[in-house]
């Protein structure tokens, strides 16, 4: 397993290069769509004020800046059902004219790729514009459990609380690590799970890196510890996010189970880690003209690597913004579809 710790300076330099490249891509594209005088409707899967919604909203002024014609962007909130409502709305209820785009998270992509009945669209026909890279963590608060070694050696039952869509990674993890666990999956939204976690109703819960940076300082005072992270997939390997020095689930499993690689549970964890690269995605509905999709993809990539946005992000969240552009995100989604098809 490769450990990846990217220095902040390198990241900023990389980001600047990406901005330049993306800006050149936007301005130099042979058939770049012109958004002058137009308004883009952007469907956010987060409720107003929720972390993903705030993240997207803070990105929008930079998207406007980097799209030709500097269009206005109207954010519409369609929260619920683990982002499937926003995804279904984007796929079915708006015109594929390049002026309507929506969002979906990695969990929904997995469900859609697996043919879940709640997904009312064909993922392979939807057009991805790009995605926020964001790792997810498992945070644990239980007497006597202070680090990953304590967790792996624990004999008591660990009660994990989460939304039902979030379970595959953690089910695979506890199976491979030999942790006795029970899942409570009735929580509908993140705040419900957080409340159950704080009151001790559950011992562990997942959260994104951004959520941990927001709630972590307070939760740590009560003894909560981030144990493992999904990590990102780089060159076929699962690696730690540069922003958080927490072992990946793969690393933790290997401490107690050297035979894990190659098992179905291991592959499931790998698949879920792949979704971290496309954690919060932006999509255009099937049928959106290619020139619009390309222009949007380049515009979002340029916005996400705009030095001004990166500085703002760093200040707001305490970690650098990371973005997967449209073609790379498409490649990852196609791999997720292929794995699910098998």
């Amino acid at each position, binding site marked *: 397993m490769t450990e990846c710790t990217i220095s902040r300076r390198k990241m900023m330099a990389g980001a600047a290069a990406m901005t330049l490249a993306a800006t050149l891509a936007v301005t130099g594209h042979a058939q770049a769509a012109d958004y002058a005088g137009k308004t883009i409707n952007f469907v956010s899967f987060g409720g107003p004020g929720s972390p993903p919604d705030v993240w997207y909203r803070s990105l929008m002024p930079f998207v406007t800046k980097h799209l030709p014609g500097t269009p206005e962007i109207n954010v519409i909130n369609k929260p619920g059902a683990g982002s499937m409502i926003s995804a279904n709305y984007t796929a079915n209820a708006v015109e594929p004219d390049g002026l309507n785009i929506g969002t979906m998270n990695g969990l929904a992509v997995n469900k859609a790729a697996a043919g879940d009945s709640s997904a*009312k669209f064909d993922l392979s026909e939807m057009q991805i514009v790009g995605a926020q890279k964001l790792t997810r963590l498992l945070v644990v608060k239980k007497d006597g459990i202070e680090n990953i070694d304590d967790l792996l050696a624990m004999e008591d039952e660990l009660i994990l609380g989460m939304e039902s869509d979030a379970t595959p990674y953690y089910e695979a993890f506890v199976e491979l690590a030999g942790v006795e666990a029970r899942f409570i999956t009735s929580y509908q939204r993140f*705040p419900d799970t957080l409340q159950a976690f704080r009151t001790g109703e559950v011992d562990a819960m997942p959260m994104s890196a951004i959520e941990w940076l927001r709630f972590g300082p307070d939760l740590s005072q009560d003894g909560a510890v981030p144990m493992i992270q999904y990590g990102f997939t780089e060159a076929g390997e699962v690696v730690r996010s540069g922003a958080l020095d927490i072992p990946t689930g793969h690393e933790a499993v290997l401490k107690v189970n050297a035979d894990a690689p190659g098992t179905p549970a291991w592959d499931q964890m790998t698949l879920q880690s792949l979704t971290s690269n496309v954690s919060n995605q932006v999509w255009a509905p099937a049928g959106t003209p290619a020139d619009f999709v390309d222009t949007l993809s380049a515009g979002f990539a340029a916005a996400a690597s705009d030095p001004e946005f990166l500085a703002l992000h760093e200040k707001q969240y305490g970690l650098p913004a990371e973005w997967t552009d449209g073609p790379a995100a498409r490649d990852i989604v196609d791999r997720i579809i292929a794995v699910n098809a098998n």
Partner: protein
Amino acid sequence: MEELTVIFNAFASGMGIVFTPNVFGAMMIGIVAGMVVGLIPGLGGLVAHILLIPFALQMGDPLAAIAMLLGVYAVTVQTDSIPAVLLGVPGTAAALATSLDGYPMSKRGEAGRALSASYFGSIFGTLVATVIFILFLPLLRALVNSFSSPEFFMMVVLGLVMAASLSGRSQSRGLMMAGLGLILSTVGQAPGTGDPRFIGPFLYLWEGLPIIPILLGLFGVPEIIDLAARNRSIAESKPVEKIAGLWDGMMDCVRNWWLVFRCSVIGVVTGFIPGLGGNVAEWMCYASAVSGDKNPEHEYGKGNVRGIIAPETGTAAHLPGAIIPTVAFGVPGNPPMAVLLGIFVVLGVRPGRDMLTYKLDETFMMVNVVTVANIIAAVLCLVFQRYLVRLCFVRATLLVPFILAAMVMGASFSNLSLGDIGFFAAAGMAGYIFKHMDWPRVPMVMGLILGGIAEPYFFAAWDRYGLTWLYERPIVLILEMMILFMLFSKPIRRLLLDRYGREAKAND
């Protein structure tokens, strides 16, 4: 001590939010709209909310939107005392008691004193309520910290049962309406499984039934149809020309400080108990003033200023009180709060422990908006009351088209779909029938809003604790006893009365 520091910091931060340009501006819009609409008897705060909902939903700043709606909520209960005192026409049900002593005072030439007593009663009421809120917050936070899914589920059930039992004359009708709201709340995706329920081919229904068009229809349409059916201006007598004695009214409040304090406490407590509206607070305070007054010269109902101070203080104090259960438990303290809760949810304010911890400043912002809005409204009322009262004489033929049009706009902003209009119309017709057949609408709305909260709590409790949560958790047991008491105290009392009443008759 550390906790008190946190609370005071949150209070200061909440006050800071109130005075940011966005929030303060929005609150002022709410105050002006609330003052104007609160003056029009029969309309009240609900219609003011209806007029402002389209703007609130599109403001982009949820806190500003909330400040605007709370501004309306705070001032309508104060301005409705103007027609109550000057014309003997209470603007809302909550101003009935005020008119009992206010109108005789007005006829006696003491309108200014009566109005001033009502404004300052309101101001003192909200101030005392805010202090009580701060003092009891540590206790409340500790209470909420001990609440897990089972307690929250039982709290929601208690809220529904209380609303069903207290908001109408027939308990079984209230319970059936709560059931109707609950079953309608299951439209959409099932929490936990994500299975679509009752959606059919309509993507529109994936998010569940649209709350705002239904609220507007259920509560707004019946009022407007009745106003149109009467087809006359609301007040028909001539307005009082001279308004003086404002200083006397303020001093009346100061002299009756114990009454003000007592009624503030009653107001906060009634606000906290789900299902009890401002009119309950008002009458309890009025009764407290009458029964606690040993002075034979104080004749109530004939122009006693204490008969104005008590209800106005109580209704004003119950406003901050009603915010607590709404934001902490998702259980609205009174019917307007049930409407506001629906809008809060749409605006992204999710009731729960966060509102007393991470978002305590936002909760304090709400409480402070109510207090500040009341003070500003009192000042504005003192300055402009002579002109404001003329609004009572606007013809229904002029008012109705504007309000109906605004309601249709408000409904269609919810999802920007014609489905919104359909639900608004259906809810409007149903609301009209429910209102006039005396089937309470508040339990239905609470069922509709709380159903989506109750179901995940229920399954979380079940999955985590099996059935043991029903009998092993002390708070759950207390809540269960309260629910049983609410459900069966009325029938049992009636049964006992029947039995012993008959025996007494036979003995006679």
